[in-house]
């Protein structure tokens, strides 16, 4: 797993986040645990990767916003909720669970310092 001192891990190892919804649009924050994780997010977690993940569920567009003060990205993903609370037939109409789909499916290559001390990913 380690290469040049770098680790390849799910985004979940270096960032946390939460989903919000407005109509059929989801927003998912991706916030670095450590300063060393912020450049990893900026360089590797882009609109194309996020849209590719949610396109099978119907998403048509992903926009990435930056909140440098929080070391956070905010993805706004249109048509991600199959109609959302108004009309989705799915179980999770708000898309509340989607933040963990993103954190689990996107892989990143990062320095060890981007992962919090004591993280199960370092064991």
């Amino acid at each position, binding site marked *: 797993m380690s290469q040049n001192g770098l680790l390849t891990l799910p985004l*979940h190892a270096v960032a*946390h*986040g*939460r989903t*919000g*919804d*407005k*109509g*059929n*649009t989801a*927003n998912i*924050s991706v*916030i670095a*645990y450590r300063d060393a994780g912020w450049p990893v997010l900026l360089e590797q977690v882009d609109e194309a990767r996020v849209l590719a993940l949610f396109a*099978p*569920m*119907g998403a048509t567009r992903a926009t990435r*916003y*930056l*909140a*440098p*003060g*929080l*070391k*956070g990205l*905010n993805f*706004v993903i249109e048509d991600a909720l*199959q109609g959302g*609370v*108004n*009309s989705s*037939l*799915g*179980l*999770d109409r708000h898309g509340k*669970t*989607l933040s963990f*789909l993103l954190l689990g499916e996107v892989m990143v290559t990062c320095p060890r310092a981007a992962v*919090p001390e004591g*993280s*199960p990913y370092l064991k």
Partner: protein
Amino acid sequence: MEKIVHIGCAAGFAGDRFDASGPILADMAGRAGPKYLLFETLAERTLAAAQRLREQDPEQGYSPYLERYLRPCLAEAKRLGVRIVSNLGAANPLAAGRRALELAAAQNIPNMTVCVVTGDDLTAYLSPEELQAFPTVEGGAVAGRKILAANAYLGARPIAAALAMGADMVLVGRGVDSALALGPLMYEFGWEAAAWDRLAAGTICGHLLECGSQVTGGYFADPGFKDVPDLAGVGYPIAEVSADGSMVICKPAGTGGLVSRATVAEQILYEMHDPARYLVPDCVADVSEIRLGEAGPDRVRVEGVRGEAAPETLKATLCVENGWLAEAELSYAGPNALARADLAGTVVRERLARLGWDGPLRVEILGAGAVHSGGGAPSFGLAPDGEYRLRVAAPAPDREGAERVADEVLSLYCAGPAGGGGYRRQVTQEVATVSALIPRDRIEPHIRLHRIGGDAR
């Protein structure tokens, strides 16, 4: 001594815990300065049901939870001088105010003054045709659908004005959630209408508080990765706000939960789109360069919020009828459970097709990636044995059609594959919401303040 305004929030959605105000008030007993207690209990579509209740009984239509939230805290809040600000008014804020006064009278609380803000209910002064003509931004068209409720998101200024009238409690209907905190701050600090950075800071204060424990460790725990001490005893938040708009987010002494830069950061971006342009009736807030700092255990300092001029239009939510939804589930467990659940789904599909059902239908297997699959076929590579749960969902124009779908899942008990158990069904009348943008001058002249109780009685 620097003036600090203390604002606690004891409910973050309709149905949030009813006992969260106790620890907030206990903590506030030891605090000097103006003190406020917020309850945010109004979801977008809640107003459709509330409006229906009001049509049936002119003294109903406020939050059905009003008594459960207010009864435990009214006497102590009045005794401590903690003023309550809430959207418990829902579709009938005046009736909510009268009911709150009755509760106070029943507890022998003297001299209670309630101020009620009205004017958010657009159906009171705009016709359905006028409502349908405004441009919509979310949720599609209104034309041809019955409007159940139409409410504008009011801002903080009426709340500030109500406090200036001496209210112990301010009750509103639809308003932007953040105004529940910004209103008290405008009143206490005399922030001018064009002090955009301050108004934005107060808006973000409200944004951080409005989901209750979501900023104090609720909805945050991820065991082993993001641990939260004593989550079962999570304390609801208190903001300590200074005149320059900077604030400390904390929680009542002796409660569980966690306030850290991470809990605050997650809540700042919650339900936000462009962090540099968060639009509310009172301003446009910019949190892109916000600064968070540890200010002691479970205390986070928040500063650096910037603001710009408020938008020209106000957002309104229109609730329209949207038919019925059927949902039904049945579990399969043990050897070959996945194949049995899959066959059960096939049976439901074929039965409904033979009965002439031609509407949308979602058949999925929980445990086989259903929540994240978008309703597709079960993924490959799943264990054939284990626990799987068939779920069927379909929209229907009427209740009868929805019941028919759920009945087909029920009939699997005898006529489906072997060993299905744990049937549950839900048939729900659906409400859709549409957001429209409406010029301020069509709404603001209709905003009214009503002072009831106290020495006005």
